[in-house]
Each structure stands twice: as structure tokens, then as C-alpha cells.
């Protein structure tokens, strides 16, 4: 039996009899299941590749005995740990060995979700209808009427009725093979051994997820002799948990994963990085002297769909491309799914310190609520630019601010696409502020639209129209 250690050095430091003896009580079904599992590992020749996940419960110490890679999981989480191992090393043969409290109570979410994922791992479920390690409490699989230390008068329906895990797992689409077996007779033990071997073979061959439920004996907490416990499992448990194959799909091997890629080109390409082009003409801007500050805060605000976020990112990209520092922060969360959408942009000569724009020097408002909400936050000397197509009555705006009503939507609609009003706004902003170098924003538009060249003329026109609108608005009458 090579899948067992010769010497259980992890069991009480391997001293004395414990070096070759388990921690299980006399007659415990875990020991029988362990021998079946060890036999399957031996017969399949997979000892080196096997990773066994021990649960919390009496079999927490399975790693004392199995001479395979071992990982001991938190209570109920063994399938999640198993999945992590399987994805890390798909050629490993990963077996999650769990009791009823672990698998069917605290770990139910992991059990079901990972079964439904269907990746080839093997789950061995020991159902003995009682909690062993904590001392004989009610299990999710305890029988109706069964007396335990937490159901002293017997289990009643309000405590939940016995959970039939094999049937539950078989009802999922993920698993390929589900069987319930038992250990109470020589005949059933032969079937159990065969089922375990098949469940592991399914994994080794990459066919999918397999689940073996073993109804098993806990003589100690049933307060029975091992023979009485075998009889109890046979006569009391088996009628509730009928044995047999619950699901067995014929699936061709499908699970095969390559080793992860570390190709620089692939990683950089997927990250959106572009090679540095030394020959590319670059505009390095000087901070415009006409601005009184070295760090300007701009708030763009409108409804979701007005394009405030896109405009904010275009501004930020452009400012960074010409050597300034810049940041953009969106409003996010439920409000980004409708209602107000606003973005705070900072552009600084050296370093953006405070990235919030609670008192923006510039407000671009695409609708009346945004104008009403944020206009009072613009300090004296600031600029308020709003869409006069949408906001026909701006109400009382604070005095001492430059107010620029520009018909952004009408200009965009005249170009045939109202949705480019955000680019119209950027043109208007450029003419009003003269913050960024001439045409640097157009360069950004060309860059971000390089794979949608058909959209470029429209956006360039929108930008130019925005600029023209402000220039004519500012022109002396």
C-alpha cells in the first residue's frame, strides 16, 4: 500500500504505535474509505501527481497517512482549495475529501458552485449522519428522529430534513459522474472501491468533475458497536440515501490547459501598452502664463450618456501626452447607471496633489440639474460653460464667474450626431481656456480612434465647431 506513508511521522511526531496507526476510532468508516482511496491511487499509478485536500472534521488529519501532496483546508472550503490547485497545475490529480458537516453544511456554497463549474476534480464525501470531531451533533444528513447532542429529542422537520447530496449534485449540469456507495458489506465495499477509482480516472483523463458519496459508520457517536453501526447504516441510512449511480455521462476527455504565457508582446499588447517611438513628434507644452494657478480643477457633469466621462479621459490623456500631470475621477456606482454622471479632472504643471474637484475652477454642465448643483461650487473668477440647447433657463448663476452658454447639443445635431456634444464641449473649453497646446486634443482623438477611422472626421468637426462657437461668442460685437 504505497499511497500510505510507511511511517506516520505527522501523527504525534510518529512516536510509538501512532507511527502506523490512525487517529480514528475503532470501526470508523473513514479508515475503510482511506484504504479504498489509497488502493485507487496505487492502481492508477498517480501517487506523485496526487494532491489531497483534507477538510475540517475527523478526516482533518488525512494528511497524516497519505503519501501524496497534501493541503489542509478551512472548514467547508476544500473544493475551493482543490480548484485553486487544479488551475495552478492542471496535471495534478486533486482530490477533495470531506465529511458531511464540511461538505453539506458550512461548505454548501463551495460544494455546489464548484461542482457546477465541472472542472475535473474528484470529491469524496463521507456521510455518516453525525458530527464526529465536535462530538456527536446534528449533521445536515442526520436522519429524521435521530438523536444527537443538539437534537436530544430526535431530529424534526424544523431542523431541516436530511440533505441528499448525491441527488443534489447529480441534478447539476457540471458533474459527469455521481454515485452513492456504502461500506457496510463486502459487496458494497467492492462497489465503493470501483467507484472511487472511476471518479479519479475521470479526472486523470480530463473528463470532468466526479462526486462519490460514501454512507459510512461512526460507531462512537452513534453509540454502537461497529457491527451495529454497519447494520444501522444498512437498515436506517440506506433507505434515506439510496445507493447507486446518480449520474454517469459519457464525456470525451476535454480538459487540457497550456502553461501560462509570459510573452512580453502578448502581455503588453493586452495591457494596452505601446512601444516607445523615439521618432514620434512630441509636443511638450509650457504651462500657459495667463492661468493664475499651476493646477486647475475641471468638473464635467451631465446625465449618463452625455459623454462627461469620455471627455474627462480625453482631457486627461491629452494633458499627460504634452507633459503635464493629470488625473480624472469618475462618479461611480449606482449613479453611473443613470442619473447624474460627473467627472473631476485635474491638470497640473508638475504634480496633481488633490485630485478632487470640490471647488472647480471650471465647470462644464450638460444639463440643468448639473448646472444647478455645481455652479455654486465654482469659486470667483472661475468659468461656467453649459449646454444652452438643453438648459434654456439657467436660473441665477453666481456673480463674478465667466458664464459661457454654448448650444453644444444643437451644434452636434447639426453635424448629424448629437452624441458628439462632449467633443464639441472640449473644443469650446479649449477656446475658452487655452490650456492645452493647439491641436493636441485632435492628436488624442486621432490616437484613440485609430481603429475607428470613420469616426474621426465627425469628431474633428465637432471639436472645431466647439472652438468656433466660443470664439464667435467671445468676439467683440
Amino acid at each position: 500500500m504505497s499511497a500510505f506513508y510507511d511511517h506516520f511521522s505527522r501523527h504525534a511526531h510518529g512516536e510509538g504505535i501512532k507511527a502506523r496507526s490512525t487517529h480514528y476510532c475503532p470501526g470508523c468508516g473513514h479508515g475503510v474509505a482511506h484504504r479504498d482511496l489509497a488502493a485507487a491511487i496505487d492502481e492508477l499509478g498517480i501517487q506523485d501527481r496526487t494532491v489531497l485536500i483534507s477538510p475540517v472534521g475527523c478526516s482533518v488529519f488525512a494528511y497524516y497517512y497519505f503519501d501524496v501532496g497534501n493541503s489542509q483546508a478551512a472548514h467547508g472550503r476544500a473544493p475551493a482549495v482543490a480548484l485553486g490547485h487544479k488551475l495552478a497545475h492542471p496535471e495534478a490529480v486533486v482530490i477533495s475529501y470531506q465529511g458531511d458537516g464540511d461538505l453539506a453544511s458550512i461548505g454548501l456554497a463551495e460544494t455546489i458552485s464548484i461542482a457546477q463549474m465541472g472542472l475535473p476534480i474528484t470529491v469524496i464525501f463521507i456521510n455518516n449522519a453525525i458530527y464526529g470531531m465536535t462530538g456527536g451533533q446534528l449533521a445536515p444528513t442526520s436522519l429524521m428522529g435521530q438523536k444527537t447532542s443538539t437534537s436530544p429529542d430526535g431530529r424534526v422537520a424544523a431542523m431541516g430534513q436530511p440533505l441528499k447530496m448525491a441527488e443534489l449534485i447529480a441534478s447539476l449540469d457540471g458533474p459527469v459522474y455521481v454515485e452513492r456507495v456504502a461500506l457496510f458489506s463486502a459487496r458494497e465495499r467492492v462497489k465503493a472501491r470501483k467507484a472511487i477509482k472511476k471518479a479519479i480516472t475521470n479526472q486523470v483523463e480530463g473528463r470532468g468533475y466526479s462526486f462519490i458519496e460514501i454512507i459510512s459508520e461512526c460507531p462512537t457517536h452513534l453509540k454502537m458497536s461497529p457491527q451495529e453501526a454497519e447494520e444501522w447504516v444498512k437498515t436506517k441510512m440506506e433507505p434515506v440515501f439510496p445507493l447507486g449511480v446518480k449520474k454517469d455521462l459519457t464525456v470525451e476527455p476535454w480538459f487540457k490547459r497550456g502553461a501560462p504565457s509570459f510573452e512580453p508582446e502578448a502581455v503588453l499588447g493586452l495591457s494596452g501598452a505601446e512601444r516607445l517611438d523615439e521618432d514620434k513628434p512630441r509636443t511638450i507644452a509650457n504651462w500657459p502664463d495667463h492661468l493664475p494657478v499651476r493646477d486647475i480643477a475641471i468638473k464635467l457633469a451631465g446625465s449618463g450618456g452625455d459623454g462627461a466621462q469620455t471627455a474627462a479621459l480625453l482631457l486627461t490623456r491629452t494633458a499627460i501626452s504634452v507633459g503635464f500631470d493629470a488625473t480624472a475621477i469618475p462618479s461611480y456606482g449606482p449613479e453611473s447607471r443613470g442619473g447624474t454622471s460627473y467627472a473631476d479632472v485635474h491638470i497640473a504643471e508638475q504634480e496633481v496633489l488633490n485630485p478632487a474637484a470640490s471647488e472647480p475652477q471650471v465647470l462644464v454642465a450638460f444639463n440643468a440639474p448639473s448646472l444647478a448643483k455645481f455652479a455654486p461650487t465654482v469659486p470667483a473668477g472661475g468659468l461656467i460653460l453649459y449646454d444652452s440647447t438643453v438648459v434654456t433657463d439657467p436660473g441665477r448663476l453666481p456673480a463674478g464667474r465667466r458664464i459661457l452658454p454654448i448650444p453644444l447639443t444643437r451644434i452636434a445635431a447639426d453635424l448629424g450626431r448629437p452624441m458628439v456634444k462632449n467633443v464639441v464641449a472640449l473644443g469650446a473649453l479649449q477656446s475658452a481656456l487655452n490650456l492645452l497646446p493647439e491641436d493636441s486634443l485632435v492628436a488624442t482623438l486621432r490616437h484613440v480612434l485609430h481603429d475607428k477611422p470613420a469616426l474621426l472626421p465627425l469628431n474633428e468637426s465637432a471639436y472645431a465647431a466647439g472652438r468656433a462657437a466660443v470664439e464667435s461668442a467671445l468676439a467683440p460685437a
Partner: protein
Amino acid sequence: MSVAPRPKPFLEPQYCKGCLRCIEACPRECITPGSEINPATGLVPVELHLENCNGCTLCLQACPEPYGLRLETDPPAPAFAPNGDFELEDPAKLFGERCVANYSEGDQPDDQIALPACEPLVLKGTYASAIGALLAGCRHVFGYPITPSTEGAELMAKILPKLDGAFVQAVSEVAAVNMMYGAGGAGLPCMTFTSSPGFSLMLEGISYMIGAEVPGVFVNIMRAGPGLGNIAPEQADIKLACRGLGHGNTRALVLAPSTPQEMLDLTREAFALSFRYRNPVIILGDGYLGQMTGMVKLPPTMTRPGLPAWAVWGDRAHRHNLISSIALAEADLETHNQHLNRKYAAISACEQRVECHRCSDAEVLVVACNTPARMAKGAVEAARAQGVKAGLFRPITIWPFPIDTLAEILPGVERIVVVEAGPGQLEDELRLALSHAGIAPPPIDHVRRCGGILPAQSAILEGILQGEEVLS
């Protein structure tokens, strides 16, 4: 024609617990209950009478003890050989070649792959963190969607399948952290993106990872609490990350970036630290930082991870490894804790990181991290413009708190102002660090907002100027 007789069972009585399951299994009634107590165990082993035995082995299949009933042809108990090996059938012969190479004994070192020079990227913080992870060699990401961290997971879900990596959206944060326990236990770099309520759920798993010494990187984009709170930025989990990583004696490096660039750089570095110390590393961002777009420059190299010797990989070289946080004997667990304490002491001594801005002559020292540190820096500049000697002390590691540098600065400091978007958890870390270091600090004031509101630069400036004689 005679057939060689099949081997028969034998029993070393000290390994029989006398459960009698074999008796029912034997069709020839060769086994009877014993009558003598075994002096070594105090139990009564069965007795074998093998005259009628035909070697059917059904008794062996009924025996719950690995070294209970065995075959007479099985090898006897060998002398203790902790790393004894076995001759096995070559699995490749049974199931075909493996696609992943076997590693040899010992640590397989990381490779550093040179990257070409790239244009700076314009990225939001969560994306920057994801790309930092990719460049650190992470190809396994497990998570559960939660605002405002989700974009990091979304980017990974898009990229990783194309790199033959894995992104798994788990059923919960509880499952996600345990997938990390698995992938990290297999020796590979893995991570998650989460936010405060999700981080709370992961704490159980983090305690197990620390106990079992499993590396992994947690990017927690903090939001306002308690409870469901809201999704706006708050530095609400400093207490959890520094003092409350699940049950038991738990510590992890806690990194606090303040720009998208640092989101990339510190995430990348977190993986190296996580493997260096075999311990999880926590990155605490805030909702603003996760969502903030800014300039990000890429590093010159990418890591291709090797495989540590301790990994439970699923091959011969790593077969004897165990990932576990259980130590049943009290003395064993105390020894393990002493080992962890030595590790924590090494981290405290070697990994303190801080940015000091205008600290050398500071009389008012502002202590802040994450996005509030940016507001604080603006306020420090504004105070300096008014002639007040203010400085910013920005911890980049919150645990370990950079107390050594602080101790050097403090003699000239007349007042400390702790700035945070939260109820005072950073100040608690500061005060604890000072107390443990035996340093009597100058008066400590604070500027705090919570609920998702960041302290405004003007409020911080006011906090700096309070009690200061303002020139000009």
C-alpha cells in the same frame, strides 16, 4: 494444474483496534474476536485462524487501519525513513505525457524577462494594479464583484484567458480566498480584487493563509462602512488589515499606494514580498484611487515565476510537502507562533516604507496615506506658502508602521496632524507605533472625514494652521 496459493492475511496485533469489521467480511469464518488485551494499546485485537483461508482479501477491504490486516507478502514495517520513496509505474505511460514540466528538487527561481520601453499608459488605479500583477507573473486571479474594485477583476477576466491563465468568479469572497489558498499553496502567485465588505469575508481565509504560510496578494479598494455603508472612498479597513486579519497571531505587510503609478508598482512589489516572506500582502487603496485615472509608466522587466521548494505542486519532487495551519500539540503551535513572530520581526525591521515631503525642518507634521495624502500634500504646500513649516509624512507601509523614520523626524516637530478619510484608524496605528517605540509624541491633532467624504485641502490647511502664527 495447480495454482499458486494466494497470499493470506496477517496481523500485527498492536495495529488492530478490535473493531471486528473483518469478521463479517470473511466468508469462511477465519477470524474471531480476540480474548487478550494487547498491552501496547489496551485494545483487544482479533485472532486469525487461517486453515480455511483462500486469500480472498475481503477482510482487508473491511479493515479501517492502513497497517491493520495486511497480506503476508506485504513488506514488514520498515525502519523509520521520513522521506522514503516508492517505485511507481510511470504515470506518463498510463495517461500520456504531461504538458507541464516536472520540476526538480529545491526552489526553481523566478526569471526576469526584459520588456521593451513603452509609452506611459493612462490608466485607472484598479487597471494599473491588474497590470502590475501581470508583470509580477500572476496568472491566477480569484474574485467576487464588488464596487469600487470590480474593474480590476474585469480586466483580468478579459486578459488572463488569452495568456492561458485563469480568472475565476467565485461563489463568494469566502470561496475566492480559499481558491487563493489552493493556487498559492501550489506555489504560484495569485491575487484578488475586493472592497471592504468582501475583505471582511476573506479574513477567515487570510488567517489560514498566514498560518499555513501561503503567499497571495489582496487588493482592497476600501469603501465606507460599517455594514453595507456606501461605495464612496473611506480608509475604513486599516484596523482590519493591521490588527484584525482573522483569528490568531496574524500579521501581513500592508501597502498604501496614493497614485495609479503606485497601484502598479506596489502591486508588483507585493508579489515579491509575499513570496519572500511566505505571507499574504494586503494593498489598501481607497475608492478614489481605484477609480482615478492617471499616468502610469511600465517597469523594465516582467517576472516569470519559478516554483518554491515548499509548493504542493502535484509531482514527485513536491510530494512530501504539506500546506496546513493546524498544529494539534500546544507546544508545536507555540513553536510555530514563535517562528511567525520572528518573521514579523524581520518584516518590521526590513520593510518599513515612507515618503517624507518637506519633513526635515517640519514643525507641523501631517501624517496621511492613500488619496488623503495627496490633499495633505497640497495643504502642506499651501501652509509653506504662508510661512508655516509643515511637512507630510506618508506611510507607504501602514504595517509595519515606518516608526524608525518618524523617530528621526520627531525631535523638531511641535505638533502632529493626522489626516484621514476614516474614523481614526491611521491615528491608532501611529499612536501604537509611538507607544511600542517608547516615544513620547508632541500633541496629536487630526482632520477626519468619513462616510465617503475625503478631507478637503482647505480643512487640512486649517488643521495645520490651528495655533500657528501665520505670517503674511
